[in-house]
């Protein structure tokens, strides 16, 4: 009897508080399913949005740069061709030796030795921050040249080497004067070659600007270099087995 009265009392109370109970339950559901996930994900959503905006901006910038490059495609092709003459993609030893031979003979040198050796070919370090992960291999050919010249001819020879289209660097130079006053000279010459094969990476920026004043100055400098046509495929040269340290240009 008592038990039945208590139950009806509880029932009555629940019925009386039905509206607050429903309201609180609905509020709880809204907090659990909408407010909490939304607030806890706010920072992440902001970060995602910022990242997307940044990506869009960088892609827009890249599109503009590429469109500019397309507009200057002729110049781009021409510049690529010029640079390929200065920094070749393969060792091309016969052409290199021919260039040295022509420079030496044009300067008046009586050549007594012309030999070469290969340095190690290594994968180039990725020092340029474009992130394109190219396949790059850098190598070095060491040329040893010796012959008789006068002092003036030696200066002309060095000037010609400094202005030669295929980049060569004089690393060592020595001479001794004989009794007739002729200089017996010898030179250690180095020439790098670099094989680069880049891939198109859509999301990575392109840094090259063909209208940049520094780049234009650089291209003008290259244009002023003298290109030696390959003339003497049968010049007498010796390959020495001595190896030189690898070059670590990128």
């Amino acid at each position, binding site marked *: 009897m008592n038990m039945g009265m208590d139950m009806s009392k509880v029932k009555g109370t629940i019925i009386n*508080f039905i509206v607050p109970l429903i309201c609180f339950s609905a509020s709880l559901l809204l907090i659990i399913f909408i407010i909490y996930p939304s*607030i806890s994900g706010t920072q992440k959503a902001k970060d995602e*949005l910022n990242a997307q905006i940044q990506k869009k901006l960088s*892609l827009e910038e890249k599109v503009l740069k590429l469109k500019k490059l397309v507009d200057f495609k002729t110049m781009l092709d021409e510049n690529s061709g010029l640079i390929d003459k200065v*920094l070749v993609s393969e060792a091309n030893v016969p052409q290199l030796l021919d260039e040295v031979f022509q420079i030496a003979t044009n300067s008046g040198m009586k050549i007594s030795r012309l030999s070469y050796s290969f340095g190690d070919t290594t994968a180039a370090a990725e020092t340029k921050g474009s992130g394109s992960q190219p396949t790059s291999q850098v190598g070095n050919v060491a040329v040893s040249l010796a012959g008789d010249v006068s002092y003036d001819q030696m200066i002309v020879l060095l000037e010609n080497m400094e202005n030669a289209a295929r980049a060569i660097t004089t690393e060592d130079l020595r001479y001794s004067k004989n009794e007739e006053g002729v200089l017996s000279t010898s030179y250690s010459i180095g020439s790098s070659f670099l094989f680069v094969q880049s891939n198109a990476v859509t999301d990575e920026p*392109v840094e*090259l600007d063909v209208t940049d004043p520094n780049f234009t100055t650089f291209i003008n*400098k290259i244009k002023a270099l003298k290109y030696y046509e390959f003339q003497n495929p049968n010049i007498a040269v010796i390959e020495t087995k001595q190896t030189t340290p690898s070059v670590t240009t990128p």
Partner: protein
Amino acid sequence: MQDLNLLPQEELSAQTEVKAVKLSTIFSILFLVIIAGVSGYLYYRDYNHKKEMEALGSNIVSLQSEIQSMASVEVKARNLDKKYFALTQIFSKQKVYSKLLKEIRYRQPLSVDISEFNLRISQIDISGTADNYISIAELINNLLNKKFSGGVSGLEGLFTSVSLNSVSMDETQNNIRYFIVVSFNEELLK
């Protein structure tokens, strides 16, 4: 005068219950309204964010496809950029030794002859003969003269030190043999 409450205890309890129900109903409805408002705002904000992300995404996809259509130019530009970078490094290390040889000739007194010359990194070994000791001193002084005016412009301070390693008289030839080591500033030859 004190108020007298003549209502029975049960009636009082019923009134309290009604009051509690009323208050809790108002409070819970208000609470629900506030929560619903906040939820609505957050839902609207998230919906907008989602829409914005979708718009950005489609924009990015169209930009990416535009970039892909110019892939051949991109590859060429990247190759050129790599070689440009490598060449600027090579050029920055290249030394103009022809200027160094000119500078030595300008500073070499006529009474001094150079018979052996060995150029290495930042250093040259020079040996030869001179008419007398004064000529050797003149050569050394000329090399170290930072205000030498008869040479290549910009190379006044090229030679940084000269060390006289040996000097001896050659009585048969009636001249003086010398051997010097000259250090120079490679940066001026770039």
